């Protein structure tokens, strides 16, 4: 009972909700970059919300089914096709044994999630099926899927076809983005003026954007408050004694190009960070394409917690609609 990979797409990986608890050993939480989309895809096909799905970036795979299954595609606007016939996104549909699931070109967003009834049943490693390619851990043999792979499926009858997340509840990204962040960590390392510039300037997502992190370009370089570097920190003013990196933290090596760490973050290193993207906006980053115009917006803890609650409420509404 399985799926055959005819064409893997660009960097399609198996992801679930990740493996917390090992960050202190340099093994990141991983899991879907857009958690909301993964939850929705699983709900649509009748899986546990944390079942393993395929996360595909910019381009979809081509998959041949060897059994009947219920499928749903959420996240980026990447239209699914069954034997060439276009299917509704954010809506469950049936794929019969022998049929081929493929995708049209990406219209918006960056990452689509393909849930299949039963979930993808690769072995659980450190509590998760998520692929952490840097550590060759989890997923399908620790790597992105490749042509010729056979992906095992779990058991599960699958929900009916035609279940749908109403358009108003879907979240697909297009156009300019505002990322909310709480300034902190080593914010004091940059000058007041540099801090003002950081929020004034429009940054663009660089081509170097992946599961580890998103790099941004185009803003003015940041000036540092002069100091004698502490012992062990390294000579560059952007260096600190190697420390932990929060998920979503914004480091700016050399003061030039901010990098926001994401689900496959490096767990620590020697660059100062000027704050952290709030948890509510992490999913959104996973849907940003290169060259997207971005502004960073400072918020306080209360606003961050309120935004987090709104994300919970949005998911709860989807659960109620699909219950």
């Amino acid at each position, binding site marked *: 009972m399985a799926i055959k990979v005819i064409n893997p797409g660009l960097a399609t990986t198996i992801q679930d909700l990740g493996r917390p608890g090992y960050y*202190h050993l340099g093994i990141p939480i991983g899991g879907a970059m857009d958690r909301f989309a993964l939850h929705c895809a699983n709900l649509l096909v009748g899986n546990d919300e944390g079942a393993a799905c395929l996360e595909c970036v910019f381009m979809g795979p081509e998959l041949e089914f060897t059994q009947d299954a219920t499928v749903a595609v959420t996240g980026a606007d990447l239209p699914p096709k069954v034997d060439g016939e276009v299917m509704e996104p954010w809506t469950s549909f049936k794929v019969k044994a022998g049929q081929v699931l493929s995708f049209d070109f990406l219209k918006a967003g960056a990452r689509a999630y393909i849930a299949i009834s039963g979930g993808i049943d690769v072995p659980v490693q450190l509590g998760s099926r998520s692929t952490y390619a840097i550590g060759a851990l989890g997923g399908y043999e620790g790597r992105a899927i490749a042509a010729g792979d056979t992906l095992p499926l779990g058991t599960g009858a699958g929900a009916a076809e035609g279940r749908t997340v109403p358009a108003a509840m879907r979240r697909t990204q297009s156009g300019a983005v505002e990322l909310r962040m709480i300034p902190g960590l080593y914010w004091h390392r940059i000058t007041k003026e540099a801090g003002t510039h950081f929020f004034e300037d429009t940054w663009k997502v660089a081509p170097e954007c992946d599961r580890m992190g998103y790099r941004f370009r185009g803003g003015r370089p940041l000036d540092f408050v002069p100091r004698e570097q502490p012992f062990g920190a390294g000579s560059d003013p952007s260096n600190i004694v190697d420390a*932990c990196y929060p998920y979503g933290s914004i480091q700016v090596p050399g003061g030039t190009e901010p990098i926001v760490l994401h689900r496959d973050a490096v767990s620590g290193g020697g660059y100062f960070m000027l704050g952290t993207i709030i948890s509510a906006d992490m999913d959104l980053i996973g849907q940003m394409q290169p060259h997207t115009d971005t502004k960073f917006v400072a918020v306080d803890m209360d606003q961050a917690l309120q935004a987090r609650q709104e994300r919970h409420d949005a998911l709860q509404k989807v659960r109620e609609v699909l219950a």
Partner: protein
Amino acid sequence: MNTRYSFGGDEHVFVEVDEEMSLEAFFKSLSITNAVRDADIKGVTEICPANASFQIKFDPDVISPDHMMAELKSLEAAAEQAEARIDTRIVEVPVYYQDPWTHETLMRFRERHQDPDATDIEYAARINGYDTVDDFIKAHSGAPWFVSMVGFVSGLPFLYQMVERQRQIEVPKYLRPRTDTPKLTVGIGGCFGCIYSVRGAGGYQMFGITPMPIFDPKQETSYLRDFMVFFKPGDIVKWKPIGREEYDQAVADVEANRFTPLTHDVTFDLEEFERDIDGYNAKLMEGLYGN
């Protein structure tokens, strides 16, 4: 030391125990993180000690950020009183210095280096005041190193040399990071040593390679069957210089599952260590190698 608290977004508290590196700062960080683990605070999902800082990840739906912060501050006060003493182990890690693989790699990235006409180890020897590379290797492998953090990527140890600050080896990182580093490269950046657990990008100066795997996601290596990561903070490492023949033998032994790292359980006491560093290190070696 001046402990500084900051929120990392709505899910992390980041605590800088000290701006600069020292074993005192490391021990304080380790002692607070141990206290956090023992306190078993509901909502805490990750406890990450680092060199001179640490980080707690928590679920703000379970514990409010302000409450989380208050808990940590109260634990800091208690940790301040704790003895800087841990039960740990000393591990011998064989190193083939100036091996052909890191040499091939460093030659490919000469334009990113401070001194393109020298190798990494020649450069490190010179700027640290050693006449020859052999002298540098003696210094590097003479005193033990303390694992003060595990991270960056899968199971990579950061190591801190257990000598007085004025004797500590320091080298800048590459001007621009390399895009490639052989797996199991032994190197230094700033004052920290490291072993690259997997192949990948890196900015540390490269001195050699160890035949001893330290991360095995397949868990086939005999001593990594129980857990895929070898090092944990507080481990003590003794580098052992080896030549090509010994290296090849060790690689073959690893593959045949005959290789077992030489380790010895020890209690490390920071105050005793600082009273007589060389004498304390000599005692550690006696424990590892017998009398």
